[in-house]
């Protein structure tokens, strides 16, 4: 493929612009000192409604989503549309747990979900498991942001690994320097570019293709081929994949706010009210995601051939490139450059927040918990900054060392494992009934079952026998049906059953439980309510206070 100079130039200019923003961000809403985790890792815990809306939108809707969801629609049709119900169900579902988690974190100075688990259940073991789960689940997610940038670069004719390495190096340096303020500021640019691109695409491309009728006719034609039918593709769901569609949407919604990077965005908000209001405003991004998904069908009508594909020989190529290629096909060079930059910059915001969140988990729940119990806030901030570099470095190595397919599989696994923290984190804000050792038992059971299910799933398209997807065949459990179900959904169901049964058993046997240092009123606290400690040096080690 030829290198497209105009597009690449615009891409680089916009990329350079947000990099400068990233460095300048450290002076934005300037704190007295950056040497504190509340400042570096949570932007001062003082973001208002608009900043939170841009930051969370930029954080949750990642570059990978922008290329992968349309790619799934391009390949399989209706099944790829699960991303829409997923992000619609999401906000009403998490509204109450999130505002409660915001309140209790505000009172006690929690920075990570593991901080909360430690205080609520008095269990450093469960807190460690939550921290490790969060870090492990986040790593492949960061790597996939690189895959998003890579898809755009490929579409511009830039192959090879060094460009994304440079992009990530710049990202790593300004994140180190500015902390959460950098992605918050860049999110304004990212989200604006995404909205602009999608609105233009949804007007221009159907017109070019002769209307929606033509688009759906072309897609229907493709999915009616015998091979596509055999793979369960179609413009509608078939008899066997409806349960999978619903459980995948619901399970993904349960998982998203368990990811540490989502909570980072929430805890950075100024008030409980800000978080609640955002739950009503964030679905605007879901609408955009739904429109983006339809681009996958437009790519079929536009007869887009993915980079590296050979239809004659049946080689699928890199489907993640279909949306960038569609933009290249539909737009003049200068606007295609802006569209590519939208996706490329779209990778920077989540990657930065994810690395900050993973670094905070390491610092708060591993370093100060097990290595240096008396670390000063300054030392905490310093460790977090360094770890955020390490995290990005590992992500780059993952992408350079493994093939892309492997990163995607790792991300699938990530969704299933992060769900195992649901009883402790999401249900923990409502009830203290679970026994700390029951939570550990449930986590282990859910993990083992989840991994076994993923192991049984083949992927005929890539010729893999294991870890080929997340749609688990119920027939593997001896049920006589062709239905499939989302593996994460079943694994977390088992987790909950084990937690309930073991809690009941341990309570009956009067086994000692951990101490809960939170009070019921902590869960409804609002900005301005008294905190456990109002002395900055002492805020937020999540341990019981001496008072």
């Amino acid at each position: 493929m030829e290198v497209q100079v105009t597009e690449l130039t615009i891409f680089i200019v916009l990329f350079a612009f947000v990099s400068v923003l990233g460095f300048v961000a450290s002076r934005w809403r300037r704190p007295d000192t950056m040497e504190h985790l509340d400042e570096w890792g949570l932007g001062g815990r003082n973001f208002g409604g608009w900043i939170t809306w841009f930051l969370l939108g930029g954080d949750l809707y990642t570059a990978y989503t922008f290329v992968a969801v349309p790619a799934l629609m391009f390949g399989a049709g209706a099944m790829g549309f699960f991303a829409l119900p997923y992000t619609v169900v999401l906000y009403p579902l998490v509204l109450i747990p999130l505002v409660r988690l915001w309140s209790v974190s505000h009172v006690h100075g929690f920075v990570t979900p593991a901080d909360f688990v430690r205080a609520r259940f008095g269990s450093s073991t469960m807190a460690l498991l939550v921290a490790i789960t969060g870090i492990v689940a986040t790593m492949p997610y960061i790597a996939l942001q690189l895959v998003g940038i890579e898809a755009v670069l490929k579409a511009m004719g830039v192959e090879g690994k060094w460009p994304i390495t440079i992009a990530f190096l710049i990202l790593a340096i300004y994140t180190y320097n500015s902390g959460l303020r950098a992605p918050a500021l860049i999110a304004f640019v990212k989200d604006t570019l995404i909205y602009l691109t999608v609105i233009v695409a949804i007007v221009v491309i159907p017109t070019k293709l002769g209307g929606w009728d033509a688009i759906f006719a072309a897609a229907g034609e493709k999915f009616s081929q015998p091979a596509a039918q055999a793979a369960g593709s179609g413009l509608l769901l078939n008899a066997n994949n409806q349960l999978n569609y619903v459980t995948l949407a619901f399970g993904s919604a349960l998982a998203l706010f368990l990811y540490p990077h989502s909570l980072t965005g929430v805890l950075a908000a100024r008030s409980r009210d800000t978080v609640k209001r955002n739950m009503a405003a964030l679905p605007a991004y879901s609408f955009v995601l739904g429109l983006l998904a339809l681009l996958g069908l437009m790519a079929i009508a536009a007869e887009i051939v993915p980079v590296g594909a050979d239809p004659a020989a049946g080689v699928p190529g890199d489907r993640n490139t279909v949306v960038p290629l569609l933009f290249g096909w539909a737009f003049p060079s200068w606007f295609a450059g802006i569209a590519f930059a939208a996706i490329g910059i779209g990778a920077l915001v989540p990657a930065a927040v994810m690395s900050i969140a993973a670094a905070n988990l390491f610092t708060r729940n591993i370093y100060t918990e097990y290595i240096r119990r008396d670390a000063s806030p300054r030392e905490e901030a310093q460790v977090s900054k360094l770890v955020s570099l390490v995290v990005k470095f590992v992500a780059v190595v993952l992408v350079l060392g493994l093939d892309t397919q492997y990163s995607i599989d790792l991300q699938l696994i990530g969704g299933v494992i992060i769900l195992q923290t649901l009883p402790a984190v999401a249900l923990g804000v409502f009830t203290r009934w679970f026994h700390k050792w029951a939570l550990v038992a449930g986590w282990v059971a859910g993990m083992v079952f989840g991994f076994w299910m993923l192991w049984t799933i083949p992927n005929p398209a890539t010729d893999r026998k294991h870890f080929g997807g997340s749609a688990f065949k119920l027939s593997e459990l001896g049920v006589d049906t062709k239905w499939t179900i989302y593996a994460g959904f079943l694994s977390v169901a088992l987790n909950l059953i084990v937690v309930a049964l073991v809690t009941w058993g341990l309570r009956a046997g009067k086994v000692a439980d951990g101490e809960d240092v939170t009070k019921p009123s902590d869960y409804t606290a609002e900005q301005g309510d008294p905190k456990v400690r109002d002395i900055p040096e002492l805020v937020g080690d999540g341990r019981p206070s001496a008072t």
Partner: protein
Amino acid sequence: MSATEETPTPPSEPPARSDRNHWYWLLLVPIVVPLLPMLYNHTDPTIWGIPRFYWLQLLFVVLSVAITLVVYRQTRGR
């Protein structure tokens, strides 16, 4: 709303708030409705050539926003 740091009040009981509010039950509507494929897994009626599967699920976004807004307004400051 001012962005300034409030001076810490002496530890007194904060105003009683509660997350028990009957308005929150409304949130079940946008949680349950998008998970019912029988509502949208059909082609007809099409709007501008878009099958029901796609346009109806996009409409659920509007439904979700509307209901969440109502709940937010009714439970504000509690």
